């Protein structure tokens, strides 16, 4: 039995299990808690989009309190809603997304160097929920377009009449995730990896976040529910 609390204060994870399944439960609960906040935002957005494409300003007003709520959590670096192309009445691409210590609104993002409007629709955190219609966890990866940080991005599609109008999501710093997960991973000597075998955090000192493991060579592992994450003994 394991328990995770992702409250306003420091994150506490207490573990009484050293089984991989128990560790996978803890990891799942950490992400599920974030997805729960995103779920209530998703429902509000579905209702707003039901009356036709809204303007960016109206979406900003709707998303902002939810984003601020997400940002109160220490594990959260940024969060909000990212619109699909032409889903909004007045902006082809738009990020109602708040991030960082200053909790700044991203709005229309620009590609670094060229300054061109940024087309984020090909990024994994957007593309995968669009293709599968399901939640996704992307990373760890260096996000050089929005945060300039090493992050994990959790996203869920916002579907209106069978079409994805955007994704709701949250960025987590890998650093913070590692600190949060290490007490859980430690007793079991476990490692959390994504579906590509890339390490999010590990109790093994030789396995830094970002390292890729060969999943076919690993026989003992536990899936983190429906998330594209698993816990294993490397």
């Amino acid at each position, binding site marked *: 039995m394991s328990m995770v609390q992702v409250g306003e204060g420091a994150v506490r994870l207490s573990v009484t299990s050293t089984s991989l399944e128990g560790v996978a439960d803890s990891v799942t609960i950490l992400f599920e808690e974030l997805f729960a906040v995103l779920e209530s935002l998703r429902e509000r957005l579905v209702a707003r989009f039901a009356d036709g494409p809204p303007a960016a300003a109206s979406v900003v007003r709707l998303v902002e309190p939810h984003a601020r709520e997400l940002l109160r959590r220490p594990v959260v670096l940024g969060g909000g809603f990212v619109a699909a192309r032409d889903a909004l009445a007045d902006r082809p691409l738009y990020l109602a997304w708040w991030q960082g210590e200053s909790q700044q609104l991203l709005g229309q993002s620009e590609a*670094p160097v060229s300054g061109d409007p940024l087309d984020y629709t090909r990024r994994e955190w957007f593309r995968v929920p669009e293709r599968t219609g399901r939640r996704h966890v992307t990373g760890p990866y*260096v996000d050089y377009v929005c945060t300039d940080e090493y992050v994990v991005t959790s996203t869920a599609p916002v579907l209106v009449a069978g079409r994805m109008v955007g994704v709701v999501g949250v960025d987590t710093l890998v650093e913070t995730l590692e600190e949060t997960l290490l007490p859980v991973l430690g007793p079991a000597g476990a490692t959390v990896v994504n579906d590509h075998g890339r390490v999010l955090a590990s109790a093994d000192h030789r396995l830094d976040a970002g390292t890729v493991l060969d999943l076919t060579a690993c026989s003992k592992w536990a899936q983190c529910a429906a998330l594209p994450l698993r816990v294993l003994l490397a």
Partner: protein
Amino acid sequence: VTRSLRHVSRARSAIFAPLGDQGRAVRVEQRLAEAIRSGLLADGERLPSEPELAAMLGVATVTAREALVSLRAQGLLTTTRGRGGGSFVCRPRHPDEALLGARLAAMSRVELRDRATVYRVILAGCAELAATYAEAPEAAELRDLLLDPDVDDVARWRHADAELYLSLAALTQSARMTREVVRLEADFGVLLRLPLTDPSFRASTGARHRALVEAVAAHEQHAARRAVHDQVDEALALLVERRAALRS
């Protein structure tokens, strides 16, 4: 030991060498221009007033003013008058060809090579680590950035080239490395992409982009490094030529 000491003392004496007022204005201008181009000074950021700036930099107000006039002429600053007015940073979107040409012409050949060396070593290192770490989905994202050889829009080639190198940096899994490369691209990468106006350079660039992406996908670190080296070598050779033409 003697040589390094001599080098150090030469570098130190350069720091403390007296500057004429004219030299100072150029130095102030270059320092601010570099900070604006590399994004250290954010787009839209307000600069301190002329007297404040002069006091901070330890130069006469007239010297600071002279530097600001020049930055305004280069489009790197805009100035508004009245309440809430002042000088605001104007980060160039698509750096103007003529301005880049002027920067290139003003650079010594030694400086050009010096900067290209830093760029080459860092980007080749990124290519090597990207080839170590990248997995199939990331290789597929890199392939998405490749342009069709018939594309003849120079801006698209410049964009694709910058995007490819930034993606390589991100694949090192290091946020610091990526931020460093963003800075390098804005500062020197834009110069290295000047010769993409040349169709034969676009063709060889396209071929090397492909070789680079396939090397990364196949975890061939050496081939990935090679592709970056060759790209920087050819770009530098063309830049040296272009610089000579601009100065003649």
